[in-house]
């Protein structure tokens, strides 16, 4: 959990490595999110449009980063802004590692904020998404 005291720009945190993405997980995410694009659940459809098979929802990977940010925030800080730019594709079997580094620490109107630069990468270090979160301490 983060503490405002002692946070330094450039500081890194322990990464979160998620279990490999599964096809069942993609079906669950489709159902829960309402994103029924068959590219994420139907291998036959995915092959028809030139892919090897289904790929994960970009928003699922953002969900992993969101889980990680909330783990770091714990109950000491609240998230004000959270964004992600989508990069490479994630396939079933891929293991996603979330990491963060402190980009900025500042105060505004008597409240303390920290800006985290976020990365989601596949096992081979290939970046599948990068993002940023702004946290406000309670």
């Amino acid at each position, binding site marked *: 959990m983060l503490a405002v005291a002692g946070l330094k720009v450039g500081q890194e945190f322990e990464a979160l490595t998620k279990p490999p993405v599964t096809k069942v997980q993609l079906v669950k995410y489709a159902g829960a999110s309402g994103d029924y694009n068959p590219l994420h659940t139907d291998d036959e459809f995915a092959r028809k449009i030139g892919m090897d098979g289904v790929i994960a929802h970009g928003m699922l990977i*953002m969900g992993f980063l969101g*889980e990680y940010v909330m783990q770091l925030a714990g109950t000491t800080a609240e998230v004000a*802004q959270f964004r992600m730019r989508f990069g490479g594709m994630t396939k079933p079997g891929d293991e996603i590692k979330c990491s963060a580094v402190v980009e900025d620490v500042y105060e505004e109107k008597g409240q303390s904020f920290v800006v985290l630069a976020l990365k989601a990468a596949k096992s081979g270090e290939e970046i599948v998404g990068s993002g940023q979160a702004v946290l406000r301490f309670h």
Partner: protein
Amino acid sequence: MDLDKSIVGLKGEVFVVDVEKRHVRQFAEAIGDSNPLYVDEDYSASSPYGGLITPLTYPIALASEGKSLPLQLDERRMLHGEQEFIYHRPVRPGDQLYCQMKVADLYEREGRSGMMQFLVLDTEMKDKEGEMVVISRMNIVYRPLAK
């Protein structure tokens, strides 16, 4: 046909969604996010949040229930490039949110395959009192179709 700047400001119809505990649990489970703040009433009540909240990306599941914009978009040209959530307060189970999508911006940039258009779509989510809760901002790359 490329999009015209006149679409900026276009709004969809307001739609109302209820944030349901069971749905939030299913959404967190699909991600594999076991944070107790989403499901454990006692734990969340004793936290600074004072009650259950929802995962950071949860508003995307609400936005997907929305009505489309009064606008012809070619889905084959659309690529979800970026997503952002701007929180004014956490979304909580039990919230009833009044949501509206609007075209926030349209701009052009030179890309590898010529001039590309970028479309910014905001779904604003407000509470019953009209206070902003969260904005879900989608950045869409509107690509030229391959010839």
